[in-house]
């Protein structure tokens, strides 16, 4: 009996602080936001009215354009995730091969990742708005003379360019570590067996990197869906709201449109979507990992 009780205290001692921190910083705000999602609170007033499921009806009936921003986020996420992972892995391969000044290149590609998204957005906005036309005038090139942030498709491409440039370094670093961790005896025996470099890469190196790929995918997926600062500073969701990511849309509803209740309902939907997608991803890559072990 006494022993059991001591067990509880011991658990409480070691797990308690972390659990309490988690509860205070995550669970409590989450529960509060669930409550707010059933209200029409405007974010300021003292009187709050419960309106049942109205906010959710608004979202799914299309009265609020949240689903539009969901499609945009989905599209840009897919493009971003593919480009970031493929390019990041290619860079890692290149920078683990026998080229000169590897360290320099690694630093150069990783550097954008250390700058905050907001600043990057403002810098690139300047490049798109002022830099590109200047180059275009110099070269008489139609490509640079486009109104880059002014049309739906080019604004989309602009966002992809900047976010890939920003995030590719992170995947590169992880994949570099992974590739360097592949035991050299395996590569050697593959070579002796007559496998080509490409074959070695796909059949030996990549499978052994699977746990790292899981991490990269998880990171890029959840990052891509939570995209906010770049849209906020680079395009401001424009032109005409066509590049509103889900997170930016929620922010605008909460702070610009004074619909705090609706915004919390949207963020709940947002939470469920991200949970589903990353859950599915973890399931499949986890399965792959086990296959290769």
């Amino acid at each position, binding site marked *: 009996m006494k022993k059991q009780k001591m067990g509880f205290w011991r658990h409480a001692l070691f797990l308690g602080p972390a659990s309490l921190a988690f509860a205070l910083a995550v669970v409590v705000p989450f529960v509060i936001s669930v409550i707010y999602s059933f209200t029409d609170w405007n974010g300021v007033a003292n009187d709050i009215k419960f309106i049942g499921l109205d906010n959710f009806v608004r979202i799914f009936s299309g009265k609020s354009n949240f689903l539009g921003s969901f499609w945009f986020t989905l599209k840009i996420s897919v493009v971003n995730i593919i480009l970031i992972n493929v390019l990041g892995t290619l860079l890692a391969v290149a920078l683990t091969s026998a080229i000169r000044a590897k360290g320099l290149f690694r630093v150069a590609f990783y550097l954008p990742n250390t700058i905050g998204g907001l600043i990057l957005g403002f810098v690139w906005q300047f490049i798109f*708005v002022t830099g590109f036309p200047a180059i275009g005038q110099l070269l008489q090139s139609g490509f640079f003379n486009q109104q880059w942030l002014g049309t739906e498709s080019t604004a989309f491409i602009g966002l992809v360019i900047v976010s890939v440039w920003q995030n590719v370094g992170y995947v590169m670093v992880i994949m570099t570590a992974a590739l360097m961790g592949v035991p050299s005896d395996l590569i050697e025996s593959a070579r002796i067996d007559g496998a080509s470099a490409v074959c070695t890469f796909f059949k030996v190196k990549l499978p052994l990197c699977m746990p790292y790929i899981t991490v990269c995918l998880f990171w890029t997926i959840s990052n891509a869906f939570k995209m906010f600062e770049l849209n906020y500073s680079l395009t401001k969701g424009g032109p005409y709201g066509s590049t509103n990511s889900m997170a930016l849309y929620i922010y605008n509803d909460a702070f610009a449109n004074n619909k705090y209740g609706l915004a919390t309902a949207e963020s709940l939907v947002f939470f469920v979507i991200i949970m589903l997608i990353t859950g599915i991803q973890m399931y499949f890559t986890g399965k792959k990992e086990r296959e290769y072990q």
Partner: protein
Amino acid sequence: MKERKRLLALLLSGVMALGMFGCGVTTGSGDAAPEKTPAAQDSGEAAGDKGAGTADAGTTEKKTIYIYQLKIQIDEALKNVCKQYSEMHPEVEFVVESEADNYFTSLKTKFTGGQAPDVFTIVGNADAKLWQSHLEDLSDQPWVADMIDLAKQDITIDGGVYGLPVSVEGYGYMYNKKLFEQAGITQVPTTLTEMKAAVDKLEAAGISPITQPYMDWYQAGNFMVNVGIARQEDPMAFLQGLNDGSTTFVDNPVFLTLADYLLYDVSKCTNPMNTDFNTQTSLFSNQEVAMTLGGNWNQPTLDEAGPDLSAGLMPFPIDDDKEANDMLFAGVTGYWGINKDSEAKEEIKEFFTWLSTTPEGQKCMTTDLQMIPAFRSFEADPDSIGELGTDLSSYINQGKVYGMYHSYYPDGFAQAAGEAVQKLVAGNIDGAAFTRELQNGWDNLKTE
């Protein structure tokens, strides 16, 4: 038993440490706005000082008035005015913080984060209604009777007045006088025909005629769409009608005319969808373009560009009705409200009364803060308000102004309207669809 006690003590201290961590989280969220200005930190410290005010309890206790306001251009001047006032009234001291871009977000987070300012900017009617539960009723103040009607209407809710009008602002096309002269334009155009003739002359002289920041929804949604509302026969009734469904944007003749005019305007711009506020300002300040949408709030920026640049305000001529076109658009764009839970309420009221009723205070408003006052008893100082302000003042004095109604929009409509304008000028939709888009935006955002 002893051991258990010790464990308990450990746990408790852990909980206390966590409690502190918890507080850290809540105050931190107050600054969760994407940009954190150094000024915000200053104010944070100042707010901390407030509690420590008892330290110099030997003398009278000082009260700190924390002003959080939207007009970044007057930040420096306002700090000076406050300093002057503190010298006369040693019992109060001021902390002034100004922010433009994230003002509205930061204000909310300041209130929820427990750092509510004592005085803050209210931009108009909808904003006043939003914050009403936090605002002190100022109806009994001596300056209320002196307010011009334009100012009173926007800040009055259920008969109560909730803010001190800070200044009258107005807009139209901002034009470069020298470039107009170069092109041989002797009189500012007041009709569409004259406008087209002027633009042709500018183009013939090799001057780029117009630039507009169509990349941002802000000016389009707030100022261009307001042209259509202000030119309705009875704008207030029109707005009321939009809310109860008796009037509509759809196929409204004024808005169709406005749409045609915007299409003409955009056709004379270079890269309109890639022009943002900064580009617009720099093009105009560098005298590379003759006209752009602008108001007297642009004066400080133009002053920085140097004495070489001479600019004026002219109407926004959407059709050929001379009388209806020869007007500017004006309104009170900012009020200062008092936080009703502020400890320094009475001191702030005194400060407001000093500003608006005593000669020294009025002088601070007109020359230091360079404002066009929203009061009957004193006038703007022509040397301080610059060319744009002088043009605006003269239009106001002749009664040739329409109102500014964006403060009556439902929250978020300015953006929806701006995006509708963007779609129109990008060639995505035509004039009729533009009016439908406006109506949709209004219907989705109005509060039932």
